[in-house]
């Protein structure tokens, strides 16, 4: 190989490269397309997982759909409230209250409180097990823990625990509905993420029959219904149902429930506190309190008895002077 061919190689390839480079540079100038800067901003605000949960091809598709006004700004099921907030700012819209929902397995019937009626050794699949006399669990409505939901979850957010009941990881769940569709027992439901009181039972049988099978099931006794000060719990189809819009998370039902089928996060229970400077002694709060936890005479500063207070926040909503805070 002589020196000339090296020279020619370099020159021709370099020339080609230069030619194409110049052509591309020219083309990108000449054919520049103006992109809406908001599209880039929205894309930055999105999680960028390209999961397709919104129904559009990737986050870019969703960003364009939001710009075109086709998709709602809270259309991203993964992003959460901060994501909605930033998209709302970019689009100059008000962020509507989107309540983040999560899936929840409405069953507490772990293997120690709810026995199996026969030993199942077939395919580890809930649908298959249901074909065999309704599944091995003595309760016909409970979670069998064979993990069908675990396998359909795209976010690794639901797992069967060592006691044979599936549990949802609240942080990972995006409420994509996949497990709810897959569950043959319909024991998974959507509940608001912030909800602190949930009926963890799905059993729609009569009390005596239920009690034989499971120690923590709802027996439809109606105590919760009668004790709820806000008309938020009702026994429907022999199982208690909480109306999440009406529920103030006072947790009375969970306290009264004889079988503890109603779960409540007592740790997160709040207490009303009167801000002395603002209270004008109107007695409105005293009258609205369902448990008589507020004391005080007219025109004097009221006091909340923290022992009695159930944290229902009814007084906070009623106070005309914003003198009550939930802590």
């Amino acid at each position, binding site marked *: 190989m002589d020196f000339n061919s090296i020279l*020619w190689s370099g020159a*021709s*390839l370099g020339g*080609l490269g230069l030619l*194409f480079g110049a052509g591309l540079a020219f083309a990108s100038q000449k054919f520049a*397309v103006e992109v809406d800067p908001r599209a880039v901003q929205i894309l930055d605000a999105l999680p960028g997982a390209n999961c397709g949960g919104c129904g559009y091809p990737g986050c870019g598709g969703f960003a364009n759909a939001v710009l075109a006004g086709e998709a709602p700004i809270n259309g991203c099921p993964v992003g959460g409230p901060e994501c909605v907030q930033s998209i709302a700012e970019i689009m100059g819209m008000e962020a509507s209250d989107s309540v983040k929902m999560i899936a929840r397995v409405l069953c507490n019937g772990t293997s120690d409180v709810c026995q199996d009626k026969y030993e199942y050794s077939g395919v580890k699949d809930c649908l298959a097990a249901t074909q065999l006399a309704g599944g091995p669990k003595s309760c016909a409505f409970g979670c069998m823990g064979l993990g069908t939901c675990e396998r359909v979850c795209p976010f690794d957010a639901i797992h069967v625990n060592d006691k044979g009941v599936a549990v949802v990881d609240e942080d990972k769940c995006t409420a994509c509905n996949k497990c709810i569709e897959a569950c043959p027992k319909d024991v998974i439901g959507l509940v608001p993420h912030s909800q602190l009181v949930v009926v963890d039972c799905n059993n729609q049988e009569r009390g005596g029959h239920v009690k034989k099978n499971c120690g923590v099931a709802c027996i439809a006794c109606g105590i919760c219904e009668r004790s709820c000060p806000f008309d938020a719990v009702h026994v429907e189809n022999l199982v208690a149902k909480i109306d999440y819009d009406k529920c103030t998370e006072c947790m009375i039902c969970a306290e009264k429930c004889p079988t503890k089928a109603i779960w409540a996060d007592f740790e997160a229970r709040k207490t009303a506190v009167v801000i002395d400077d603002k209270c004008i002694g109107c007695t409105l709060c005293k009258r609205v309190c369902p448990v008589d936890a507020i004391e005080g005479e007219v025109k004097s500063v009221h006091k909340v008895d923290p022992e009695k207070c159930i944290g229902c926040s009814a007084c906070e909503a009623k106070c005309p002077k914003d003198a009550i805070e939930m802590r």
Partner: protein
Amino acid sequence: MENASILIIVVSAILVNNFVLSRFLGICPFLGVSKQVETAFGMGMAVTFVMTLAGIITYFVWHALLVPLGLEFLKTIAFILVIASLVQFVEIVLQKISPTLYSALGVFLPLITTNCAVLGLALLNIQYDFNLIQTIVHSISAAIGFSLAIVLFAGIREKLVLSDVPTPFEGFPIALVTASLMAIAFLGFSGLV
């Protein structure tokens, strides 16, 4: 192949020497974007577009630049350069001129940059010593062959999703088995030309 007639080139490129099923070129998009017939068709069209243009331009690069200068050994790198810039150029122009087509082709356009079927076509064209007309016909036919294979395959895969496949074979394994069966089927055309 030097003086092959147009008809023989067409039949050969589409059926007998099908780029995917007989030459095993462009396997990546063949497996990657063949889950739905619609997207597979989009990919086929994008490849057709780029292959035809690449065939023509590499013809001129070869006959007007590399052969006169005695630089035949540079063909691989020169053709890669041509294809890569061409795809970029087509993408930029399409975005401006026809946003509809651009969004329809979407992600497939940049994917073609690294598609060995395009490079293989350019190299085969000079290997067979085609003239310009033959080059164009061969390019279009090869691309049609690719589109045919990928659309047929996508049709089968759409059915496969619904069928009862043994667990170890789910997904890619059964797709590969299907692809090999299709290749064997296309082997039946081998006596045609």
